[in-house]
């Protein structure tokens, strides 16, 4: 697609500010008074236990369903996001957990799906060039853009999904569990990719259950618990503090387990 029409936001400029976001499904209060800020050029990790409301929040921002109450400010203006197309055209791109790629189509076709160049006589050459340029900017290792997506590994598919979300030149990209199904090396590749996206000046929201990955890549860690904000941490925060915020107690399954472990192997715990 065309290069950014508006100027790129300055690093550190607030792109997205949520205030008092609530969402209820019938009697269930999924989100209550959520506050969140995302700046250009930073990675915000959204962590929390199952049912904490992370995915609901992402879906509100992606336009899948609207919030029940609260304000969304994007680039300084209050906005309503009532469908996925609105979110996309505004500049909020989402990579869902199940990636949603067409396995029977090749990488180029998947990247440009729904936004093909020249609808009446597809411009394959231009699309392929743009695909290679985009993948090279991300330093992504895709062997060939003319192979069907079915032949790619999990990490490569994740790369294609992320590249696709970047094609429309968004300001913010949201990733739901980007490393959940990946091996060690592939996880590292995706984390590198996230850093490169951040370095391009985008705001990144990452949902993850993996504290190691979160700490490796996030500038700020926002904890949700039972649909409410439950603390904000930096990447240097200790595991205990994070887990306590996530589970809502210092006394929990994780702390008991590590205490047990420490009692049994005092030496290894000390050296670790």
């Amino acid at each position: 697609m065309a290069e950014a029409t508006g100027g790129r936001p300055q690093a550190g400029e607030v792109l997205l500010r949520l205030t008092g976001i609530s969402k209820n499904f019938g009697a269930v209060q999924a989100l209550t008074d959520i506050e969140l800020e995302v700046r250009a050029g930073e990675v915000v990790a959204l962590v929390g236990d199952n049912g904490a409301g992370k995915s609901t929040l992402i879906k509100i921002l992606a336009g899948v369903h609207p919030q029940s109450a609260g304000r969304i400010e994007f680039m300084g203006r209050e906005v309503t996001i009532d469908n996925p197309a609105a979110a996309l055209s505004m500049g909020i791109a989402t990579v869902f957990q199940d990636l949603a790629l067409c396995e029977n189509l090749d990488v180029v076709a998947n990247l440009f799906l729904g936004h093909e160049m020249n609808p009446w006589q597809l411009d394959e050459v231009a699309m392929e060039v743009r695909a290679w340029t985009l993948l090279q900017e991300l330093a992504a290792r895709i062997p060939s853009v003319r192979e069907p997506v079915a032949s790619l590994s999990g990490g490569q598919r994740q790369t294609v999904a992320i590249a696709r979300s970047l094609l429309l030149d968004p300001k913010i990209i949201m990733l739901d569990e980007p490393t959940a199904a990946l091996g060690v090396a592939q996880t590292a590749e995706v984390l590198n990719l996230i850093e490169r996206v951040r370095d391009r000046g985008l705001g990144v929201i990452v949902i993850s259950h993996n504290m190691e990955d979160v700490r490796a890549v996030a500038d700020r860690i926002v904890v949700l618990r039972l649909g409410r904000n439950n603390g904000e941490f930096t990447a240097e925060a200790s595991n205990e503090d994070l887990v306590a915020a996530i589970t809502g107690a210092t006394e929990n399954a994780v702390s008991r387990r590590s205490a047990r472990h420490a009692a049994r192997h005092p030496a290894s715990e000390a050296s670790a």
Partner: protein
Amino acid sequence: MTMPDPAPTTLDRADSRLHHDDSLTGAVHAFVARMRTGDLGILPVAIGLVVITVVFTALNPVFVAPANLVNLLFDCATVGFIALGVVCVLMLGEIDLAIGSMSGLASAIVGVLWIQAGLPIGIAIIAAIAVGAVMGLVYALLLVHLGMPSFVSTLAGLLALLGMQLYILGSTGSINLPYASGFVHFGQLMVMPAWVAYILALVPGVAMLVTKLRVARRRRAAGLAAGSLTLLIIRVAITTVALVAAVWYLNLGRGVPWIFGLFVAAVVALDYALKRTKWGRSMFAIGGNREAARRAGINIRRITITAFMLCSSLAAVGGVLGAARLASASRQAGTGDVNLNAIAAAVIGGTSLFGGRGSAWSALLGILVIQAISNGLTLLNLSSSLRYMITGAVLAIAVIVDSLARASRQTHGRG
């Protein structure tokens, strides 16, 4: 210790994990590898056609006589058009079972409006095709708004349209169309003059050469690998020689039927639409992964509606041409094995029943196989009972090949 820098490579050949071999042997190896992983393309059909030709010629040499092959091509166009429509719905992973009835109704509409009501033939044909488009719209709306499976809605359509056909034909049951009319001539007699046929035989090769060279120039300018010129020339030469030889052989008989030319033109048009337009890309995407297509912002409803409307309209065109071919609009039109033959042709030609894979050419190749079998068995004086059984077996084999190839593609990661 350090490797010497390789020669500067193009944008798409930089990754060392990719195999590239632009030589002739490389192309052969790539072809074999594709076959082994279940990416069969037209190979099963090509083999099938060769086997059919050899067997029937051994049993009755008349089979390969030019006159018989010309007849065969005359017969291909009617069901071929219907199969072309089937390709559209199969691509989405849907089905239309009412195509036979639709074609029968279309031929009845032409008969009634043209002969009984005395309207111009052009109006009668447009009316028949319009009815087809409306029926396709109905199936599609039932599917996208009420979630009614196309299998069920078109099964209902099969019966309803057959009833409609019998109703408008009334007690007479059959309307004969005048033999002297241009319409019936087109269906039964009109062949291309030899020089037209030869020129048309040269067109695909020239078109291939021109477009491929232009694309290659653009790719090189954009820093992409452009493929081998030798391979292109070989392909163009083979295509041109084969087509010119076919035209020469058919001209030993009556010549190339115009009605077949019309069918091939429709195939080329649909092939372009499926491969080179956003609409076609969306068709493949919906057949491959509906949810992914939806999230990519594709209007699934609109694409589904166009596919069903196209399918039913093409079935109506097939019915109209069938009336021209038989010089009559009768109660029998569109019944019997028409439905099955059209669906079988699309599947035999390589369009997957599971959606997301196929091409317009599969209608042409499939219908050639079906008509060759039917024609050969007729030459052997076999009854329609045997013909049905054998065609059924061929369809079963085609579906088995499709399923096996699909499983193989999945294990080899080729979608």
